[in-house]
């Protein structure tokens, strides 16, 4: 039997876990065990998928045994399985972090009984979006993860969270409506919603209609991926959620949008019709986003802006339609998921340790908690693209591809990319200098926690003692794990780039994907006889 037929388990297992955690609603401990165990199993399964795809090439699974284009297919290729592995690793780390926080807070802030099922379904939705080979099912995957994110974002129901939740919810629903409109238009024009089938049939349409459908999909995904000028909602909504929730949103949700755009640009509408507008959008996203980051004083908001800004890099990469560019973009997505999530997790720790996430109120954290400083420093430098980290390698790959392309616009983007990384470094260095190194007395509104600290607590084990009470081991441990995972991306950058380039090649080539779904010889649509369905077991 084909290994790929186990791919739907990446969605099914978390939902099964959600069902179990619903039933275990009064036993938080059991809930924790179930969700961590199921997510770990899912991660192992996905690693196995990645390995098998690396050897055996793209594979598709027909759900319920219904042949495409009638049934729903899930497609496992290198890109999707890579995204699965990275996203599940990140979600697992965040889950452990969140349970740590829940335990430390005495479950005050996040009613655990709700958190676990919701979180698991969120993971399922993300995986579904990565795997889906059916446009409408992609929509369903988006809806799953969005609904889960509405619930997670409004956890606790405080004023700011509800306010942010409204912004987020309304914008997301509008983007979903736009996506659904685009699906309807595409079905109207082609009579199918299977993506491989669409790849064949869209080509039969005239260019004008193709562009029309193309642009409608791009607008819908552009909102989800937060591309300028469709990005303003993001920094208003993400930062107010609880730290682990923000972390997983920042890491995964926009990337799902980017993933959808990549599929649109490579599978459905190949070619370079929209490269120029996409590049312009990428440039504006980078610059406006990073300027926004410079204007912030709150770390979470600052990071949200850098998140938007760095989406620009990915769009830049995919807009080049070259193996080098797309490969670098794939690498960058994997890198950015990990790094952005770790930074938000660290910010959560900073908030616990320093009592605030605003740089106006933080100071001297390096002496209070050297471990925290290291945890922040490594991913922060990685984000800014300091060599030799993966952020540097990803950006370098993008810039190289840009230089290769050699058009004036590509050079403008290369310059913009360098500028953005410099400004990211500036923004991050500001946080680093102010929150970690200045004296508490120098802060504008120092938090009482910091002032209470004895001046020389850097020595001796006293600082260590308070760290234990303030920073639960599970939280620090999971953050540390993720930071190490991020460093691992650097260490194994070589093989990773190989996977990224190979997947970029496959995506631009398209035949692997289409043949995996529709068979070696794509059937002529319409009049063909339905294959006899074997439904007996």
């Amino acid at each position, binding site marked *: 039997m084909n290994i790929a037929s186990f791919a739907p388990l990446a969605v*099914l297992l978390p939902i099964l876990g959600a069902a179990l955690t619903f039933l275990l609603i009064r036993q938080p401990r059991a809930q924790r065990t179930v969700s961590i165990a199921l997510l770990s199993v899912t991660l192992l399964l996905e690693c196995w998928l990645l390995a098998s795809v690396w050897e055996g090439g793209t594979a598709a699974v027909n759900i319920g045994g219904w042949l495409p284009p009638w049934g729903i297919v899930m497609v496992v290729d290198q890109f999707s399985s890579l995204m699965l592995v990275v996203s599940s690793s990140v979600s697992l780390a965040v889950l452990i972090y969140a349970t740590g926080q829940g335990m430390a807070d005495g479950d005050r802030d996040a009613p655990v009984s709700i958190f676990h099922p919701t979180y698991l379904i969120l993971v399922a939705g993300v995986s*579904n979006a990565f795997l889906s080979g059916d446009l409408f099912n992609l929509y369903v995957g988006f809806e799953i993860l969005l609904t889960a994110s509405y619930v997670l974002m409004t956890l606790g129901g405080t004023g700011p969270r509800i306010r942010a939740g409204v912004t987020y919810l309304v914008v997301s629903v509008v983007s979903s409506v736009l996506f659904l409109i685009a699906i309807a238009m595409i079905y109207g024009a082609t009579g199918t919603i299977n993506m491989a089938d669409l790849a064949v049939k869209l080509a039969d349409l005239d260019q004008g209609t193709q562009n029309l459908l193309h642009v409608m999909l791009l607008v819908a995904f552009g909102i989800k991926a937060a591309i300028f000028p469709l990005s303003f909602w993001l920094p208003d909504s993400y930062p107010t959620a609880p730290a682990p929730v923000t972390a997983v949103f920042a890491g995964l949700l926009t990337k799902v949008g980017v993933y959808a755009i990549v599929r649109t640009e490579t599978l459905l509408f190949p070619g370079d019709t929209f490269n120029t507008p996409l590049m312009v959008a990428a440039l504006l996203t980078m610059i406006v986003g990073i300027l926004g980051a410079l204007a912030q004083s709150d770390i979470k908001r600052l990071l949200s802006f850098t998140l938007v800004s760095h989406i620009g890099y990915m769009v830049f990469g995919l807009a080049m339609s070259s193996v080098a560019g797309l490969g670098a973009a794939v690498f960058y997505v994997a890198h950015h998921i990990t790094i952005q999530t770790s930074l938000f997790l660290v910010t959560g720790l900073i908030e616990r340790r320093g009592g605030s996430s605003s740089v106006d109120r933080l100071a001297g954290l390096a002496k209070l908690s050297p471990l925290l400083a290291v945890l922040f420093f490594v991913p922060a430098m990685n984000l800014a693209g300091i060599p*030799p980290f993966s952020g540097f390698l990803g950006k370098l790959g993008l810039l190289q591809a840009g230089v290769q392309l050699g058009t004036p616009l590509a050079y403008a983007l290369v310059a913009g990319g360098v500028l953005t990384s410099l400004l990211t470094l500036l923004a991050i260095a500001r946080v680093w200098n102010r929150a970690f190194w200045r004296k508490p007395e120098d802060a504008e509104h120092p938090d009482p926690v910091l002032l209470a600290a004895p001046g020389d607590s850097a020595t001796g084990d006293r600082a260590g003692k308070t760290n234990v009470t303030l920073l639960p081991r599970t939280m620090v441990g999971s953050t540390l794990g993720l930071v190490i995972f991020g460093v691992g991306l650097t260490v194994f950058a070589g093989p990773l780039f190989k996977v990224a380039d190979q997947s970029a090649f496959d995506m631009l080539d398209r035949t692997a994907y289409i043949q995996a779904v529709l068979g070696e010889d794509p059937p002529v649509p319409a009049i063909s006889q339905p294959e006899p369905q074997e439904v007996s077991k």
Partner: protein
Amino acid sequence: MGAITKSALVPFHFWLPGAMAAPTPVSAYLHAAAMVKAGIYLVARLAPGFADTPYWLPVVLGLGLATMLVGGYRALRQTDIKLILAYGTVSQLGFLTMVVGLGKPDAALAGLGLLLAHGLFKATLFLVVGIIDHQAGTRDIRKLSGVYRSSRALAIVAAIGAASMAGIPPLAGFVAKESVFEAFVHYGTGSGAGPWGLLILVGLVLGSILTFAYSARFMWGAFAVKPGVESTPFKPIKPAFLAAPAVLSLLTIVYGLWPAPVDGWVQPYAALFVPDGEDPAAAAGHLALWHGVTPALGLTALTFALGLAMFFGRNAVSRLQGLVPGWIDGDRTYQLAIGALDDAAVWITGRTQRGSLYFYLSVILTVAFVLPLTALVLANKALPEDLYFVDPNSPLQIVAGAGIVIGALAAVRANKRFLAVLMVSVTGYGIALMFALQGAPDLALTQMLVETIILVAFVLAMRSLPAELRDRTGGKYRVVRVIIGAAFGITMVFVAIFALGARVAAPVSLEFPKLAYEGGGGLNIVNVTLVDIRAWDTFGEISVLALAATGVASLIFVRSRGEGIRASSTVAEGSVGRRSPGGSRGNTRDDATLAMSRRFAASSRDAWIVAGRTLAPERRSIIFEVVTRLIFHSIIVFSIYLLLAGHNFPGGGFAGGLTAGLALTVRYLAGGRFELREASPVSAGTLLGIGLATAAASGLVPLLLGGQVFQSAIIEFWLPVFGDVKFVTSTIFDIGVYTVVVGLALDVLRSLGAEIDEHFEEQSEEPAGDQEPGGVPAETTAKGKA
């Protein structure tokens, strides 16, 4: 190529000294030895591939040189010995970048040699600074005096490091720097480089002179006896403290005297570069202490001479530096630039990040119609031919359509909350009618049920909100809203016309009837599509439902999931929703009515429904209770029929679940929140869990049996009463769907109904009694519609 700018080169070198405010050992470790070196290492790794691109050399050499000179210049101005080292590091980084970036084999060799040497001596020196700081309590060269006398060992260790930095033989720094000069002399005088090569060489020598000068300044500043400064109190150093820098400086000496092993390590790297074709000798670089009398040696001598001169003329030099106007000073310029940048950032952010949902949506929707419109105009196509207003199969659609539009316009105009809700419901029901007219009975049924439940939920949730619905946006905005709305609507109509008109292929769904009947074993094609062909969609969708239910509960209950409503038997009779007589300013007429209704309710207190007795008498309606009693079970039975028959007739899990939800709604409205608990012994969360688990299991089992996920099977067997029964396993999945939908309905009623009831009662029990205006009692409003 952009990468190089980031390894702390000009203009970004400022962060490095800033970050070096770190405690000394960390600083030494992070910056001198490892952190920044890693960047250089990367440049070194990249150089083999990049050296041929036309932008590489000017960028690397230019930036490297600038960094080297600026860093050295600034190091000469510092009074803190750590900052001297910090700026020295910046300078050395520029130096290293130039060398390794040159992309020639001999330079590569020299670069790696220098990299190693630098690591050794810079780590030594930082450790020395740490010791001085620790023992003397200061790092200021204006305060330090006579440290040499206090600790000779330390001074010697430091001197070795500093000498290596300055490039004095026979130390590591000399060996490395010698081969660097060698490489650049070769480059500068070789063909192809032209005047630039010489210029670079001059710059390099200048940089080395600065290096020599600040090395001397460091030694003098840290250790020398200064006239007029009293000698610094300096505590004796423990030997262990000194061990680390001593070992490092020992290595420096060994490396200088015997560079052969290092040479062996780095030769393979140098071999990566293609030697210049015209001069094969260029490849033959070596790290060695003595190269013979070469131009490089001459340059080294020149460096020493001028460096010494600069050191001895240090007062003149610093006077000269003081004369340089402030704006040339990098720091000032940098800060001004950053200030301007920040202003720009705030300005742009203030313009785009308005914090207003209205603004964000306007932008999004504008983009959403402008781009497709542009695409339409550019496509410049003729209208498709096959357009029609009246569907020959269903002319009534026009009437239904008019109804829908009128409902929508009325919803826009409505200034009463419930009127607006009702008007939106009208459009909803109109669309249900439209579905029916189009030939979609399942959709019509589901849409009707959903509209009804939503209407009830609306009324329940909004009973505490004011009845007025004011339009709070100004006239200017209203115009914008009309324009965006109309433009979007019209654009979508035309996009749809062109997109639908463009279809050439037959839809895949033509095969669905046959697939559904033969493969799915059902007559209702839509239902088979939902639970079998596209079961995966439905599976995702019920998890959305489960989430929404959870979400509503979490918003209303906030802290817990609120699983327990007490059993009705524990609740005092008539305690729910009791109004205190005379509470509202002694309105006697109300009181009379109240008394009357109580008498009526009390006189016929037969238990039609279980928890009816918990309601206050004035809230009870006997007729409603009787009707509820009569119809509840029939509705439940009907819902189960819909569920099971769904495979062959209109219905299915959704419709069935929604119907059961309506039955629960009726019970709740008649008997209040305790009745709701009686009606469903299982909690909503459990229902959601069981439903999801059933659905997931029905997907998982086929996989375990060797099929695909969600593969269905048809089982035929004989039952005594029913005769031959055809059972399709996808029905199990549908049962899961049914259960989740019931769970959702229960959760909505529990939260928006029961829990808000409780909020109400808590509020009215508060003495101040700030009565909510427009609080419509649930029963009276919702009864008519249920």
